[in-house]
């Protein structure tokens, strides 16, 4: 069952998302978070069960804020959050069952990878911290570099050692904030496999990312966040199908938009052109050839070109489509 509110029947702002069935590890109810007059998260409601869930959104959409609230690091301004059926704020005992991989890269640069993971194991009161440390490091394939100082690690190595530290106590809920940034393609493949494994083991894994195709390979369920609001939720493929039905849109700013529009009309790949002030919004079914053609036409016509912006190229543009009025 797929719903797409486009143009008709606007959804209420408190619309929420709940998995169709099964247990709920995380329950977020009408949560908002604001800093001064900046709203980071606006009335978000959702629940998540075991398996991998992707939290998708452009930078600044509020992903990290939500994940930090889930981990109890910050308190929501209003609304309630329950994790594993308990309140998460001021409840340190619950951290025995939660692991967080924070977004920031800084880890104690003066420790070795092994010392860092072991510190986490000791602070989790594990009976055999050394054994747990070795197992966690092996799981992220970092044994070779484990005894080097973290200060000398690459971004990808930092990400993996952070994941090892969050895994060391075998948590039921694992929160990963942008775990794939800075990894090379091979590492990314391995991490994606690891994350899927963790989900398959019955853990609840929630992963944030601003890259659509990463999430596509990671998670079946996704939550899409735009400007602090839940913009789309559910099965990734179902949402994508809704997006793919449409042609790609490009915004062009030029000195003489009307004359430029007339010149562009000749292009065979063009589907439509709208004039919007001094800009044109173009729909095309072949963006690449359109990009090649635009400067040539501008030069031939002697029209000055100011700006060419893809409206559908990045995730932001997907949202521009998703959220267009």
């Amino acid at each position, binding site marked *: 069952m797929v719903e797409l509110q486009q143009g008709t029947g606007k959804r209420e702002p408190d619309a929420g998302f709940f998995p169709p069935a099964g247990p709920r590890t995380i329950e977020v109810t009408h949560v908002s978070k604001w800093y001064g007059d900046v709203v980071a998260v606006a009335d978000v409601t959702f629940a998540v069960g075991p398996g991998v869930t992707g939290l998708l959104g452009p930078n600044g959409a509020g992903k990290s804020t939500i994940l*930090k609230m889930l*981990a*109890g*690091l*910050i*308190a929501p301004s209003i609304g309630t959050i329950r994790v594993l059926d308990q309140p998460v*704020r*001021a409840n*340190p*005992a*619950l*951290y*025995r069952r*939660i*692991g*967080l991989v*924070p977004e*920031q890269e*800084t*880890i*104690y*640069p*003066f*420790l070795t990878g092994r*010392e860092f993971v*072991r*510190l*986490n194991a*000791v*602070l*989790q*009161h594990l009976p055999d*911290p050394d054994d747990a440390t070795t197992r966690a490091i092996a799981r992220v394939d970092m044994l070779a570099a484990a005894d080097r100082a973290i200060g000398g690690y690459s971004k990808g190595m930092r990400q993996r050692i952070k994941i090892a*530290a969050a895994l060391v106590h075998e948590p039921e809920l694992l929160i990963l904030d942008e775990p794939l940034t800075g990894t090379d393609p091979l590492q990314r493949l391995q991490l994606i496999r690891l994350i899927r494994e963790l989900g398959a083991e019955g853990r609840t894994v929630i992963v944030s990312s601003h890259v659509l195709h990463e999430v596509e390979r990671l998670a079946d369920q996704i939550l899409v966040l735009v400007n602090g609001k839940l913009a789309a939720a559910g099965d990734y493929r179902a949402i994508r199908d809704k997006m793919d039905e449409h042609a790609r849109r490009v915004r062009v700013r030029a000195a003489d938009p009307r004359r430029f529009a007339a010149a562009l009309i000749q292009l065979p790949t063009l589907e439509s052109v709208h004039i919007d002030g001094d800009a044109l919004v173009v729909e095309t079914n072949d963006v690449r050839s359109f990009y090649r053609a635009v400067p040539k036409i501008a030069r031939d016509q002697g029209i000055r070109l100011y700006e060419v912006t893809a409206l559908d190229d990045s995730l932001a543009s997907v949202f521009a489509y998703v959220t267009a009025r």
Partner: protein
Amino acid sequence: MMSLSRRAPILWLTLRQFRAGRATWLAALFAATPILLAVIHRLGSRSVSDAEFLANLFLEVLAPTVVPLATLMLATNALGNELADRTVPYLLLKPIARARIVVEKFLASALVTSLTLAVGLLVTWAVASSGAERSSRMLAALLGGTLAGMLAYGALFMLISLLIQRALLVGIIYALIWESALARFIPGVKLLSIRHFSQSVFVRLLDDPTVTLDRALQLPSALAVLVVVTVAALTVASLLLRRINAA
């Protein structure tokens, strides 16, 4: 080392952090400046006696400047750095008492600061006084007064570092400007000044009729103040850490 990393992991972590950071060197540098003054005293014209020099050194240089500067460096660093670097989640997201985080952090900063200050004082004392004038009572008074000031400043500004990003600067303003202003204009409020309290401990331990301090506290009440300030500051810090927003 292995058993420390197991028994007191946060203390161990903080010592490693201090070993790597520049703040420790700065604290050591501050702690070493009295040595320079002692050398100048030794080489220069001997207009004051060694005991007089050391007493003045403590009352006018150590207590007002060196002890607060050296203490603040590490006390505001121990937790403040983790907040600034956003590494504090690695400690907060653990099933451990918040008080344990605060206490281990405080112990680490107190340990390193008192060690550097003690070494600086020992050398200063050895350089500035010679032969018969070398008194162990003076050394004990120097160490005692310094330790008292160090503990109170340390606990108080570890708490402040949880509240304010610029705790070090606020601490310096407090120690160098505020306490001087208090001492100059409102003598009664002196009783609320950590500097005065540390000077009192020094004067009482020295017990020399020629070295006096206006409104000096008695030793027992000075000790009581020390315990109350330290315990209260650490308790409030633990409570704050429970509800902190670690963004």
